[in-house]
Each structure stands twice: as structure tokens, then as C-alpha cells.
């Protein structure tokens, strides 16, 4: 493994202190009935408990979400109260980049010496499909109810186009082949189901029992509901919504949360279930692609990041991305002349859904777990976000034997 300087020398992600809920699809689970901010706070507490991390270890909380939730004004301090741990923190939001931005922001907090143990907690409930009441001055109906979570996907105010149009435009620019896109989607499903069957995801995903107001069990969130096994013929038969884009080759809306900790080297040794494993922040960058070329943006971001840190794509042990459209991965592979079969080995948002805030947090956790299984190496996490944005980050996982 090449040696490069970390971007946050002081910050570490303690192995094994993380977890994610399953991501049930829109309106399919008990998550459709709860305040997602409260759910996320309580779920983080439960996950830390299962990981044997007393919540009193937490000094600061960075939360990330993109869809309005009840009492969102009260922000991270309120979510911390749902953990029953009165600490400060703030809310961070950048569409589907939120999960990775929050992790990097936590690294910066630790590296800058502001905090020693920062919790990253990202969550969203697309099931909210919020009926926001916004007295927009120029609205043709003042104080109208806007169901604009869905409209966000359908309309980029900067370009006037829908996200799906970006996917189609990207596919056209890179001359993507529908058969390859379908084949890739099929492979991604296969990767996910193999990871489920192997038990790999049990190290990441935590079943959570949801209560109603009377304290009775409303349901258990213990599956990525909404995922159906697909086959080549059914994918092939699907109607093309835009170039190379069908219902089978794009993601779906879902609900969920994901959390991890960022801390110092010393505290990571204390908190981790396997202190011999060290996880460092190597680098991170963002780019903005040309209008309506969002699927290209991740590749551009990765290129920029690799150039900046002095690594190549071949130096990466694990590649994992947020890929709302299968064409994202085809474009990435073409851009780097890379075999797309070698990435997203344990599943990806194309398959398990798209709750926005926590999406890239879960991607990161799965990627780090995969690197640990491989005995360490560089981990490349990347993805696209609304506004034709690409984000990419590299982590280094080192298995150095027992360092206690």
C-alpha cells in the first residue's frame, strides 16, 4: 500500500462502532409512522449500546438529513436529546452527498481539535413526502402546500430538468449501451443478495423495533423492503424512461438512518471493538459537472481526488459509490477504463434505495467493513448529488495487529 499523507492526521474512525438501520422503501415500514429525527436519535443510542459504546463518550453530534421533519429547527441538540445525552452539534445537508459530507465534517472537527469524539448521524424519511407550507412571495398560490420532495427529482431549478433527464443525457454523452446497463444492474442485485446471504450485512445493519404512542410494537424494521430479485429478461423488458434508464436501473425512495463515530487515534483504540484496525481520512473533494450531467460528476470528482492525493484507481482496495442510476457506474467504468464488476461488492443504493441523508454513510460503513475483510487498503467512496455535484473521499484501513 502506497503511503500518502492523511488529510486529517488527528482523526480516526473507530472500527465497529457504526451501524445503520435497514432501508425500507417509501411507505413500506413502521418508519412511515415516526418522527425520523427521534427515530434516528434513539436508533443511534441503541446501536452504540449494541457496540458497547456508552453514549457519554460522545462530545458532539453532526446530523445530516435533507427532508423536513418535525421540530427540525431544533436541529442536532434535539436529536442529541433523543439519545438522552445533552451535547451540542449542528445539522448539515447536501442532498445525497450529505452522508459523506457529515463524516468529513466530523473528521475536521476532531482534526482541528474542537472535539475528540464526534457522532455522525444521518437520516431521512422520504415517506414524509412533506406537504410543506411555504409562503413563497412569488408563488402563484401564496401559502400553498408543496409536495416537493418528489418534485426535487423532477425539477432542478438551476437547469429546469429532471434528474432522470441527467441520467439519459449522461448515457448519451458516454454512448452507454442499454444491454450493458441492464447487465450491470443485474450484477448489482446479485452482489447485494450474496452479501445478505453471507451475513456480511449483519455487521452493518441493525434490526430495530418501532413503538407506537402507546408503547406497543408497531413493526420491526429488519429488512431493506422494496428490493425484488430481478432477472435479465425482466430488466430487458422494462420500458425505457430515458436513454438506458428504466425502473430496474434506477434506485427507489426509502427511509432510514446510519451512524458512525469519528475520534482521535487514542480514543479510537479505546472505543473500537478491534483496536488493531486503524481507519484514517486520506482526502476528499467535490466537483460540479456541466448542467444535467450528474452521472458524470462522481467520475470527475474521483479523478480530481486521485490526482490531489497521488494515488491511482488501481491503488484502491474497495470502491463503492452512491449510484441512483446504473448509468453512473457504466460512465465511471468508461471514464477510468475500469471493470465495474470490481466495485460495489456488497450492494449499493441502486439496489437498496435512496433515503438521501444516510445513503453515503451506509455506503461508507459497508466499504470500510469490506476493506477490513480484505485485510486493509484504500477505500474510495463517491457519489453524485443534486445540482450535478460529485463527491469523493478516500480512507485508509490498516490492520496493524493488536495495538492496545
Amino acid at each position, binding site marked *: 500500500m502506497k503511503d500518502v499523507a492523511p488529510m486529517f492526521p488527528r482523526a480516526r474512525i473507530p472500527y465497529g462502532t457504526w451501524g445503520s438501520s435497514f432501508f425500507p422503501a417509501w411507505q413500506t415500514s413502521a418508519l412511515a409512522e*415516526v*418522527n425520523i429525527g*427521534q*427515530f434516528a436519535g*434513539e*436508533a443511534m*443510542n*441503541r446501536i*452504540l*449500546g449494541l457496540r458497547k*459504546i*456508552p*453514549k*457519554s463518550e460522545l462530545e458532539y453530534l453532526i446530523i445530516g438529513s435533507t427532508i423536513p421533519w418535525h421540530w427540525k429547527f431544533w436541529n442536532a441538540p434535539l436529536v442529541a*436529546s*433523543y439519545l*438522552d445525552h*445533552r451535547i451540542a452539534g449542528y445539522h448539515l445537508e447536501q442532498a445525497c452527498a450529505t452522508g459523506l459530507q457529515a463524516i468529513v465534517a466530523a473528521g475536521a472537527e476532531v482534526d482541528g481539535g474542537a472535539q475528540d469524539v464526534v457522532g455522525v448521524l444521518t437520516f431521512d424519511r422520504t415517506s414524509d413526502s412533506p406537504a410543506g407550507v411555504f409562503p413563497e412571495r412569488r408563488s402563484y398560490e401564496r401559502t400553498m402546500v408543496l409536495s416537493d420532495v418528489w418534485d426535487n427529482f423532477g425539477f432542478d431549478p438551476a437547469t429546469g430538468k429532471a434528474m432522470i433527464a441527467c441520467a439519459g443525457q449522461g448515457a448519451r454523452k458516454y454512448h452507454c449501451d442499454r444491454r450493458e446497463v441492464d447487465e450491470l444492474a443485474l450484477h448489482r442485485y446479485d452482489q447485494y443478495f450474496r452479501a445478505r446471504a453471507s451475513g456480511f450485512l449483519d455487521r452493518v445493519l441493525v434490526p*430495530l*423495533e*418501532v*413503538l407506537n*404512542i402507546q*408503547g406497543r*410494537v408497531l413493526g420491526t424494521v429488519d429488512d431493506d423492503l422494496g428490493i425484488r430479485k430481478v432477472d435479465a429478461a425482466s430488466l430487458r423488458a422494462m420500458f425505457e424512461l430515458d436513454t438506458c434508464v428504466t425502473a430496474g436501473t434506477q434506485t427507489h425512495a426509502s427511509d432510514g438512518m446510519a451512524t458512525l463515530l469519528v475520534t482521535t487515534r487514542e480514543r479510537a483504540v479505546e472505543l473500537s471493538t478491534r483496536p488493531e484496525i486503524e481507519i484514517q481520512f486520506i482526502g476528499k473533494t467535490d466537483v460540479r459537472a456541466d448542467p444535467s450531467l450528474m452521472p458524470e460528476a462522481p467520475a470527475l470528482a474521483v479523478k480530481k481526488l486521485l490526482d490531489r492525493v497521488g494515488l491511482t484507481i488501481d491503488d484502491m482496495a474497495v470502491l463503492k459509490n452512491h449510484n441512483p442510476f446504473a448509468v453512473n457506474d457504466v460512465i465511471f467504468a468508461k471514464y477510468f477504463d475500469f471493470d465495474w464488476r470490481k466495485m460495489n461488492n456488497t450492494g449499493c443504493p441502486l439496489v437498496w434505495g435512496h433515503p438521501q441523508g444516510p445513503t453515503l454513510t451506509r455506503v461508507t460503513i459497508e466499504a470500510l467493513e469490506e476493506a477490513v475483510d480484505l485485510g486493509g487498503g484504500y477505500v474510495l467512496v463517491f457519489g453524485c448529488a443534486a445540482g450535478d455535484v460529485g463527491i469523493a473521499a478516500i480512507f485508509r484501513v490498516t490492520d496493524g495487529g493488536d495495538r492496545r
Partner: protein
Amino acid sequence: MKSMRQPTLETLGLGTVLEIFQRGKLPLETGDIVDQVFGPSDSRGSLVISGANGIVGAGKTMQLGSRLSPFGVRIVGLDFPDAPDGIGRQYPGLLRAFGRERAGQIMSNIIRLSYDGKNLPSELKGLRPAFLLEAIPEILEIKKKHYQVFRDTFPGIEIRSVTSGFPSSQLGVGIAHPSFPHEINKVWETVEQEPGIAGKLFWSLGLIPVPVSDDWSFVLDVLFCGLTSAALRFHRASNVPYWRIDKYVRRLLGPNPFRAHDAIGAKGANFLTWSCLHDLTEKYGKLFEPTPELVKRKETGQNWYPLNHARPVINWRFDEEENQLFESWVLGPIIQMTSLMLHESRAHFSHINAIGELCAQFRRGIMAVIRGLGADEAIKKVESYHRLHKDAANAAWYPDVFAQIESNAWQQLYVNAEHDGTVGVITLGRESYNSDVNAELNRAIDWLKAERIDRVIVTGDFHFSTQMVGADTSEFYPAVEDPSIGLAISTNWSKTARRLYHEFKVSVAYINGKRCLGGMLELLMHCHYLVAADDATVGMPEVTLPVIPGMEGCHWPLRKAPRENWPKILQLLLTGRSVPADKTVGWLTDFVGSSAETLPVVWKIATGGDHGLEPRPLAEGGLSGIPAEINLPPADSPSMTAARKAILACIRESCETPLADAIAVQARHSADFMSSRDCRKGMIGTEANKVMNI
């Protein structure tokens, strides 16, 4: 005279239960002790309660006011002029308990005076203060100055502090530390030089004084604050929310420590718990050290449970490993704290046990819990706790005390036996019957038999069992799921009850007032004679729960009653309504009267003297002619209708069966019904589900 272990009555300086029957009178008359404390009726002094508007002060103003007003003792409620009206807030409760007229009388007997904390109001002299119950804030120096002012002004005044933690040696006065809720809880932990005047006064007023040693904090506070502390440490280690820990603690032991704090009032309760643990930490070390969560809540007064709009959305369910961890964190420290209290000889073993049950919601007292575990397992629990909390291992741990676990003092926590060589007395020191009482009763009978005693009186202990409410329904929780457990309980308890009939030449049960219901009544009716004080009521409320009486209540009383009285027994069983004991003479009881009348009669029956009562024979063959129907008021619910039908079927079948086979019949009916849908949907089933299925 011999006894299995020291009678708890003796700790109050009131002799033994056997002596009560020998003398034919109670050890104290209330009028006499009131005269002794407050002076004769023509110059009666008053009871002053300082801090009377606080939670403790106001509650005790009501409790003592209602009991002392018939004797013309004025209650003086003393407090700062700006204290919120705590006494006035008690009035609705008083109204509910006593009705408008009596509540008015009690309130008009209370004189409220304000003072500035330094000078006593001049009107006080005219009220002749004879007894000061101090309930002012927990600041030692202020308390001491307060006593001095009273002593300077009223030399000879009796003073007791309700302090929540200071020892008498620090305060310089005796202690009468009451238990929450203060309006109704009868238990007071008392610290007096010898069995003293306060204990005797409280006992004569129908309260439950419990003498304890003069140490930092009280038995209740060690148990309750200790349990809270243990639960907090578990929370700190596991992140499990307080509300969820409460449910697991309730399933394991009975209390909801965090809910209790919120119910009492988190601001005050958090402070008192912190204060208690802080003092105990100073004295005994880290075992008691308040956690940062408690320190913070002491400062903020914040509730432990989430606000209503933030009711929890995520459940926590323990697997076996988590449950073991939970038990180590919670049981370990409580057992260790108990070892400390035993090492210091803080109180009679039955006192330590009863305080947990009567004041801290323990389903079984801590001594019974430890006895159930056994010495080795108890020690293992503490050692396992020490592996989690190493600082606790360094002090206040006395495993040697568990060597006493086989002693009668520990084995007979609820049931004692005394005898004078001829007559024995079995005393039941628990209001409700459970498997512990059953086992102890068997041992008491064995002991008397071994002592060659064949004449026995069975009664309460004249101390803790101020009433006998029947079976402890928490015993039935597992039987709701598994009828074989119900069958075993019913069969075993019935066999124990029959020993009172079969194994003594004469057995006489005595109901010492208030009430005797359900399983306790079934037990006592097995004696050859049943005598009751005339202020007692008796009843079989099982149908209202609903369950079927399981200790032979469906046939035993009919076998002893004249046929023409059978409808009255059926009324008792099928309506669940209690009746005054004096209405049951001849068909359920054999004699009812004042204590002056009944105590000598009981003694005469027991000793074979001339009591003039005809024994009611027990029909051992099958009975016929059980009424198929009787006039009953409408049932309260469909489940009560079902229970009536089931009880009637049990009555008919168990009565028609010869006595030798009747236990099996009744037990089968009882067990089957307990696992039925009607019982599961009733009070016991609902409680069992709430407490056990979490």
C-alpha cells in the same frame, strides 16, 4: 416461652404475640399512650409539625391529624410565610378518604402558623407543644438550631426528625423517618435510644414503626436509592433508556425506580436520592457514588421519563447475554448493600425485608430474594458486578453475612412461631399470601410439632400485617401461561392449609381487625375455630379479578356451615363483596367481638378453657343440595359472568366430592380458569402481561 425467631413486636418493646393472648389484651391502649405523650385530656398538648407545607410535612399532618383528632390532640402546622400551601392541597384526598364531615373535622383541628425560622410564634405557647415532628430541609446546622429554639422555649418537648439521611447521633434528636406516599404509607423507620415513645405512639395509632440502627441513611433509602444507583450504572454502561430499564427492574424485583422519582416529583426526589447516595459514598465508598446523570438531574430537576410528545419510538429487548449483564449490574449492588446493612445490624431481618415490600414496591423483600438465590449465587452475583464496577469491590462488601442464610431469622421472614410449652402461636407478618409465606408456614408448623405443641393460634403479627388481603396475585403470573403451575400452587397451598386442621388438637384463627380476604381467609377458615375482631370485614373477592378461589374456599366453608347458610357463602363467593365479620357468626366465623372480648376467648379455646362455643363439624363426605341458582346482583363485566359460572361449577363439583379428593378438584378448576381467556383479560392477566412480557 420459646420462639422460632425474635417477634418483631418485641423490637418495639411491646412483648410477644403470645403474651397478648395470655394477657387477653393488647400491650398498649391508645388513650394511655396519648395521655403519656400529650398530657391528660384536660390539658392536652399539641403535635407541632415544622415544614408542614412540604411533601412530607403536609402528608404527615394529614395522617397524624386524622388519627390524633379523636383524642383531642391539636396539630400545629408550622412553616415559613411564603411556603406554598401544601396542607391545603391535601384536602381533596382527605375528602375522598373520610367524606366531607370528617375531613372538615380533621382540617379544623389543624392550626397553621407561620414563623421566620428563628423565633417561634407567640401563639404556640398557648397550644402547649408536647411533640415536635421536624420536616424542614436537609441542612444539618439549620435543623440543630431549630431543635434548640424549641428546647429553649419548651423544655421537655419530644422531638423527632423525619430526616432522609442524617443519623440521630448527628442531629441530637430521635428519628421518625416516614415512607412515601406520606398521606397513606404507615411505615416509619424509627431511631430511638431504646424502644421509645414515638414507636409506641405510632403503633397504637395503627401505623407501622420499624426500629432501625443509627446509621447514615435508612433501610428504605439504601434499598431505593441503591436500586436507582444500580439502574443508573447499568444505563451508563449500556445506553438502555431509563423507561426501559424500569420495565426490566420491575420484572426482576418490582419497583420502577425512575418512574417513582418522576411520580414523587423529580426535583425533590432527585435531590434526596443524590443526597442519600452522596452521604453513603462519604461513609462507605464508591459503591454508592452518584453517577453524573444523577448529579445533573439533581441540579436541573429534570424528569427521567421522556415528555409526552417524545414518547419512545424504539424498543429495547434484551437477549440472554444482555439480561445476565443487567442482572449483574442491578442485583449485584443491591445484594452488596444488603450485606452492608446486615453487617451493621441495621434492623431485624424481617424489618429489612418488609421495608422493601411496603415502601419500595419490591414484589418480594430483598432478604427473600437473596434467600431464593442462595448464599453462593448471591455472592456470585456481587462478584460478577465487581468485575463490571471494580471500584465497588474495595469496601462495604461483607459476604460472610450470608452464612446466616439458614438461620430462622432469615428463613422465617414472614411467619414466626412462639409457644409456652402448651399453646403455640403462628404469626403471619405479610398482608398477602405467597409461596414464601407458604413455605415458612410449613416450617413453623413443623417446628411446633417438633416442640410437641398441638394447640395453636394462627393470626397476624400485630405489627406488619395490619390487614390480610389475600393471595399475592403476582404469584399467579406464570400460572396464566402454564396451568400446571396454577395446579401446583393451588394444591400445595391447600395442603398447607389442611395441616392447620389435621395436625393440631385445637387450632384457632384470629382476625385482628380491618379485613381478611381471599386466600388469607381460606387459610384461616381451615382452623377448627375462627374468631374475628368486630371491626373486621371478611370477603372472597376472587370473582372480581377474576380467578377461582384455590385454597378450598369453594367447598371448605360449606362443609362447616349449616345448610341454610349456604346461600350466604355463595353470595360471598359469587359477588366478591366483603361483609362485616359480625354478620358471619355461625356459618363462617365462630365468635366476633371487641379485642377485650375476643382475645380471652381465643386463649380459652386454645388452652381448652370454658369458652362456650360449639365446634362446627366438618362434613367429610360429598355434599348434596348445593343451590343451582341464587339471586345475584348483575355482574360488572362479561369476565365476571364467566367467573361466576366457573366458580359455581367448582363449588358444585368440589362439594359433591369427598373431602379426601376435593383438593384435586378445586385445584384443577382454579388452574384451568387461571389460564383461560377470561382470566388473561382480567386484572391478573393484564398485570402479568404488563410486568412479565416486556
